[in-house]
Each structure stands twice: as structure tokens, then as C-alpha cells.
């Protein structure tokens, strides 16, 4: 009768992170990964895409920041053990695309074209996971914060309707969205924060799951490091 609600999940492929999420991210959740420059947002989202593709889950990685070639060579230099990246790309199970976004906010049509382009990519390889790196690139192109927030809101609503699990990145420090260009993060189902702390000269990366709709999650911050084998999240 009153059975426990089972939530379908997408694994992030990163063991420590899946543990913090009690098994992974609820399917179809829209997740924002935010943090300062250099905290590893691009590398983290790439690893999520890679790990999913590796277990035959079609994935799309949209790069708004770097060219496809730069992205691939950067991640390869960080993740030297990921030796099958090219193979996954050529099988189109890992679909990496760069989108030139300079004109997205010039008109309603441009914006729709941009969204439709992403939707088509998602359908092309029947992606179950979508990455968008990063929203920060788009903010200066919008007229003001409110306009930017409305566009982001409509984009997230679109991905929800598509039924895809999405990770988008945005650069902002601390706990305040004040300088991020977004009014708030309410349109996202999940929020993962990457920060750094320095104590007595030593320096530490920290990951916090701030919010995750449909899921319990650890509340405390976990230290992490970026290794040639991927993200290593400490308990």
C-alpha cells in the first residue's frame, strides 16, 4: 500500500559525490554547479558526462566557454587516465559541441534558435544527461539581471519539459548570488557548491550539496581533489 517512493536516479559516476547524494541525482532534476573560477566546474561536469557515456548513457556536453578542441585537450591533460574519450566521442555516445552564443539575446528568435539547437542535439543521440558550461558566458550578453534570470528560467523550464537531467555551471563565490547575474537559484532542483578555503597557508577545495529536490543528501561540506583519475571526494 503506502510503499516507499522510489526515486529514479542518474549516477554522477563520481563515487564520493553519489554517496553524498544517497545514490545519485534524481532523474530529470535541473542542477546548478557553482563556484569561483578554477574550482573545477568544467572538469567536474566533464567527468559526469564521461562517466555516464562510459556506461552507455548518451550524453551531450555543450560548451559555451571553450572551443570543443580546447575543452578536449584541457580535460585530457587533467585526466590522463581517461584514454577512451575519443572513442566515446566518435561513437556519439559522448556528444561534445561548442555553441557560439554572442547573439543569443539579440532577439526572441535568436534565443529560441539557441534552445531549439540544444533540444535537437539532445534528441540526436537520445541524451539522458545534458551539460551546459557555462551560464557565466551568457550574462554579459543580456541587458540586465532580470532579463538574464528570465531567460535562464525559461531555458530550465524547457529542459524540464524535455525530461532530461541537466547540469549547468555558473561562476560565483560564497553563498550569495549577488554578483552572478541571477536573481536567485529557485528555478533549479539542485545546487552544488564548489569553494576553496585556505587555513594556515594550506589550501582546500570543498564541495557542498546545498539543495537537491526529491532526495536526501549529506549536509556537510566534503573536501575534494582533482586527480588524473578524476574527482576524489573525501568523506
Amino acid at each position, binding site marked *: 500500500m503506502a510503499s516507499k*517512493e522510489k526515486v529514479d536516479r542518474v549516477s554522477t559516476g563520481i563515487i564520493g559525490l553519489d554517496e553524498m547524494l544517497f545514490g545519485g541525482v534524481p532523474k530529470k532534476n535541473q542542477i546548478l554547479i557553482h563556484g569561483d573560477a578554477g574550482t573545477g566546474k568544467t572538469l567536474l561536469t566533464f567527468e559526469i558526462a564521461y562517466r555516464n557515456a562510459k556506461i552507455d548513457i548518451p550524453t551531450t556536453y555543450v560548451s559555451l566557454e571553450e572551443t570543443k578542441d580546447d575543452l578536449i585537450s584541457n580535460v585530457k591533460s587533467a585526466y590522463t587516465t581517461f584514454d577512451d574519450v575519443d572513442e566515446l566521442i566518435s561513437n556519439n555516445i559522448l556528444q561534445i559541441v561548442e555553441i557560439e552564443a554572442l547573439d543569443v539575446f539579440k532577439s526572441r528568435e535568436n534565443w529560441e534558435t539557441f534552445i531549439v539547437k540544444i533540444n535537437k542535439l539532445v534528441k540526436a543521440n537520445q541524451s539522458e544527461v545534458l551539460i551546459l558550461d557555462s551560464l557565466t558566458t551568457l550574462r554579459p550578453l543580456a541587458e540586465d539581471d532580470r532579463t538574464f534570470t528570465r531567460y535562464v528560467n525559461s531555458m530550465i523550464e524547457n529542459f524540464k519539459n524535455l525530461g532530461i537531467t541537466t547540469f549547468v555551471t555558473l561562476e560565483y563565490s560564497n*553563498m*550569495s548570488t549577488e554578483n552572478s547575474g541571477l*536573481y*536567485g537559484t529557485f528555478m*533549479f532542483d539542485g545546487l552544488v557548491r564548489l569553494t576553496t578555503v585556505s587555513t594556515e597557508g594550506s589550501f582546500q577545495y570543498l564541495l557542498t550539496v*546545498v539543495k537537491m529536490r526529491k532526495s536526501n543528501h549529506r*549536509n*556537510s561540506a566534503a573536501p575534494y581533489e582533482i586527480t588524473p583519475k578524476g574527482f576524489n571526494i573525501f568523506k
Partner: protein
Amino acid sequence: MGMRRKVKTGIDGLDDMLLGGLPEMNQVVVAGGPGTGKTLFGFEFLYKGAKLGEPGVLIPLEETPEMIIDNAKSAFTGFSDIDKLIKDNTLCIYDTLDIRSYLNSREDQKETFARLVSEIEEAVQENGAKRVVFDSLSLLKLLLKGEQDYRSMSMDLVGNLRRMKLTSVLTTEIDVAEKSRMYFLPEFFFYDGIITMYSSGDGGANRALTMEVIKMRGTSHSRATVPYEITTKGMDILSLAQRGKG
């Protein structure tokens, strides 16, 4: 003088802090950080009301009704009769699809707002709601261009909820940086009550959720900042004894 009639939130510790509950017909803002459980708070307020035979309506602008219900069911596995209460419409999670698509496609936002108010009224009349949850004001902010317009629109909304004689919870996302400024925001004066939900110790190893009743017209109340948890049986305000344990 006598105290106003109280509407039980159903959240044990909170009703104690409020000496029985929210004063009837108060318009209360629940403000706090992302993921602190504002929506779940609103859901529990309506669910517990429905259990007492008081109909309620939730107006979700951030999520679809399905997502609200899924989320509530996954968090509150102890609430066994959610489906039944929804089926007999004592608990109504209103589908705002039209409004949400307008929000994303139109510039003429005053018209969208007028529609929103009339839809709330319709839903309230349909099940005779006494309680309403508006989730969230943050989204309303996207409707209109200037701060000024947002303020007059939220005042308008509150006025309408008062006119319908509802006891309301209106959620809003405010980040930590805004917390101290909050007291000085003009819009906070026209709400009857303010409850904040925050996660403290962010960035550190021990993130803890805390709740505080900042103001509540029509009753005296506790001024303590209390820790709480989201449990399978609902929001749980930790008692002094439980706090002592850690």
C-alpha cells in the same frame, strides 16, 4: 483583548513557538536560502490543515504540481494519505502551467499577474480553502521590470489574499547576504509575519538548518533561533533536550 484565533501549522515545535499557530488571516512570508525546505514547509502546512478538515491550495510557480507532490512524497514518507487528500480536493496543488508559460513568453506582465490572481481565486472557491501557499514571490519578481512594480504587485497580491480571508504562507528565496538587509526592505512591512529558514555554518563541515520567527502580528512568539530537520514525518524543530545531545 484576547488573542486572535490560531491556525495550526501542524509543525509541532513551531506551533509551540507561535503559542498555538499562525494568527488566522495572517499573510506570512517564509524567507530563506535555497534547499532549506520552504516548499516542503508550505506543503506540510497545507497537508496538516487538510488532515484537520481545512482545505488548502498550493500555488506552485517554480515547479509543476507533479514535482511538488513527488518531492513531498519522497521527503515525507510518513504522510500516508497525500493522494487521498488530493483526490477529494481538500489538498489542491494548483496547476499554473498557463501562468508559467506566459511568464516565459510575454512582456505584458500586468495582464499575467491579473490572471494569476483570478486563478488563485477560482482555486480557492472550488475547494473552500482557508489556507494558501504561494510558492514563490521570487518568481513574481521576474514578472515586472522595476523593483517598484514588484513591490506594488506583491502588495496587491497580499491584499487579494486578505480579501479572500485566507491564512497564507508566501515563500521567497533570500540568500545569506540578504538576511541582515531584509529588515529594511520595504516589502517586509506589509506582511503580517516573517519566518526565516537558513543553513548556518555554510562552507564548514557542519551545515545546520535553523528557523526563526522574526515577526508575527497578532500573537507573542518565541524569538529563539531553533535548529530543525526535514524528517519523514515532517519538519522537526529540535527541542532544547535534543539540542543538548550534540
